[in-house]
């Protein structure tokens, strides 16, 4: 670097003019450098939201296990024993009673009927017990033994006792059995019990041809066909044949209300100010602070805001809903500053003609004063959210929905203080406030159904996309709200 001897006038001129020129990089550059050198910062909110979603998914999954999955689990256990047949979903199969009640009359029950013994104290000695479905034995429950054809290869039948299939005495199915059949079944049951008393495994190998399905099925079929759960047993278990369910057709519209306590944060960028004003110290009152990021100069604290809204929903599909409505917002944050003697300060505005300076009075000084004070930047807004809600998980009671909306927003009233161009004062900024703005919101909710209402609760984030102040003001401010939304939706009939 030794060309000093060759400097001519042009080089000297360039050096004098250019060498101390400054340009101000955007804060993004520092964030990138910091992330590269020191690693990425963790964002606590992300962890919180992830934890919430995982918890919600876990809870909703646990509380919404399909009963058929329970049967699958039971069947998988039964597969360990090849002599057992897979169980059927008694509760959800449309042929519940065709498949189980008629053919699963047990010899034990019939013997009890014949002997008029106590049906609540069956003799299970020596018989294998396999729970099928959890029914309440305190309600007229009677254990029965199921007779089923076991093997297609051998002409044998096995006697397998199933404990939870119940047919109450005097039920329609039991009445259909003739005395001859009852006697026959009782004899078979006695034989089977004796065999089981000797060797349990042998009892499984015994096979008896029992045309039970042909004999009992008509009665059960009749009961289904009648579609009338006149039997107390059926009423006890609230059995309603699926074909008879006549649901009223819901309207596609719904409505709801919500409330969202939130906290407001803000992010300032002063690239424009630094580019246009920092390069022209003569035309703008640029302070020493200009070398630092504006966010490190201001001291603001988030304050509690509120969103209150009415929503109208239209079901576009089973899961997707169009959502609109009206929403009132209060968003605010505090600025910590000092009360000082009233001073004249300058706010530089940038427009097509260049830089214009506006002198204003300010009793607040950012650096010193006779007492510290707190300014409350508060806005009242009304907005029209337009967006969609998607049911990510639909359980019977619990579920998870995600929603996103864009919100044209009008500011009704405001009380705002903005930073002067030298970063030293705060002045009234109402005249530079942007009346219309655009916000967007995203959220994820845990939902819970109670009757016609669906309640929901979940985190929500709302972002302001245009700066709070007009484009003339070179320091741009963007607001962000984070809150928890609680609300309900009612589907119209």
């Amino acid at each position, binding site marked *: 670097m030794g060309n000093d001897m060759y400097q*001519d006038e042009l080089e000297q001129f*360039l*050096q004098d003019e250019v*060498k101390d*020129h400054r340009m101000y990089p955007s804060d993004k550059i*520092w964030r*990138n450098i*910091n992330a590269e050198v020191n690693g990425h910062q963790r964002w606590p909110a992300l962890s919180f939201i992830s934890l919430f979603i995982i918890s919600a998914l876990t809870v909703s999954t646990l509380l919404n296990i399909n009963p058929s999955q329970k049967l699958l689990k039971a069947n998988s256990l039964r597969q360990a024993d090849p002599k057992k047949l897979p169980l059927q979903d008694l509760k959800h199969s449309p042929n519940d009673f065709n498949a189980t009640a008629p053919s699963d009359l047990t010899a034990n029950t019939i013997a009890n009927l014949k002997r008029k013994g106590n049906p609540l104290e069956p003799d299970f000695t020596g018989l294998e017990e396999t729970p099928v479905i959890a029914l309440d034995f305190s309600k007229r429950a009677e254990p029965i033994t199921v007779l089923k054809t076991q093997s297609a290869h051998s002409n044998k039948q096995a006697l397998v006792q199933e404990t939870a299939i119940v047919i109450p005495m005097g039920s329609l199915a039991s009445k259909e059995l003739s005395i001859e059949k009852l006697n026959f079944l009782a004899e078979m049951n006695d034989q089977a019990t004796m065999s089981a008393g000797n060797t349990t495994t042998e009892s499984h190998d015994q096979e008896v041809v029992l045309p039970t399905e042909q004999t009992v099925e008509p009665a059960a079929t009749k009961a289904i066909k009648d579609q009338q759960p006149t039997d107390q047993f059926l009423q006890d278990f609230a059995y309603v044949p699926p074909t008879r369910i006549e649901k009223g057709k819901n309207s596609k519209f719904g409505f709801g209300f919500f409330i969202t306590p939130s906290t407001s944060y803000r992010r300032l960028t002063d690239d424009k100010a630094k580019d246009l004003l920092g390069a022209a110290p003569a035309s703008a009152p640029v302070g020493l602070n200009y070398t630092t990021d504006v966010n490190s100069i201001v001291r603001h604290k988030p304050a509690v805001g509120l969103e209150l809204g009415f929503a109208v929903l239209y079901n576009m599909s089973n899961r997707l809903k169009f959502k609109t409505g009206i929403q009132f917002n209060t968003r605010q944050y505090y600025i910590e500053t000092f009360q000082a003697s009233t001073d004249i300060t300058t706010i530089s505005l940038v427009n097509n003609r260049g830089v214009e300076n506006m002198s204003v009075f300010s009793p607040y000084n950012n650096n010193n004063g006779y007492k510290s004070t707190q300014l409350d930047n508060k806005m009242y807004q009304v907005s029209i959210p337009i967006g969609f809600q998607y049911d990510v998980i639909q359980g019977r009671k619990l579920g998870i929905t995600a929603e996103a909306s864009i919100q044209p927003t009008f500011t009704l009233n405001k009380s705002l203080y903005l930073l002067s161009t030298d970063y030293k004062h705060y002045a009234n900024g109402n005249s530079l406030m942007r009346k219309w703005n655009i916000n967007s919101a995203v959220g994820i909710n845990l939902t819970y159904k109670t009757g016609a209402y669906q309640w929901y609760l979940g985190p929500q984030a709302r972002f302001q996309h245009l700066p709070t102040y007009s484009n003339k003001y070179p320091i741009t401010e963007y607001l962000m709200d984070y809150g928890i939304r609680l609300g309900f939706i009612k589907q119209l009939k």
Partner: protein
Amino acid sequence: MTEQAIIAGCLQNDVAAQRELYNRYSPKMLSVCYRFAQSREDGEDMLQEGFIKVFTQMHTFQNKGAFEGWIRRIIVHTCINFLKKHKKFNESVDLAYADYIQVKEETVPSIMQARQIIECIRLLPLGYRTVLNLYALEGYSHKEIGQMLDIEESTSRSQYTRAKSMLENILIRKQIIEQPKTEFNWLASIKK
């Protein structure tokens, strides 16, 4: 915070010290990068790469010269490497080309003279601009420039001569300087 405190803090990976260093030197260094770069975005990329090197190579600073000069050298080398990496050099532009460069009024903001001059420098072809930046503004010799750019020393000299002539024409047409009446009255001709 003193310069020594900043250096000591940076050596201990103190984020506050790193931020202070960045705040203090990044405006000047971005101006350097911008003179080399094709766009502001490229300039910011150069600055980012340069400061990452500054922070990671801080232990190599030996307090022998000015700290700002050390940072500046790292930034300049980063700019050159960036241009090489992205193959943005366009060498051997004929001097006559200078007459056809359209100096667009809108590309030169009328904010201040320094910025105008920088914008004029940026109108030069990249090869010319790089040599001019390195020689006239960063103080490197033609020998050093030749090593940095992998060109002959004589090539650096000829490119610089052409770059200077081209820039002079642009500055005159932009009315930043007046047409010199004699060969040696350069400074007197600068418009105030």
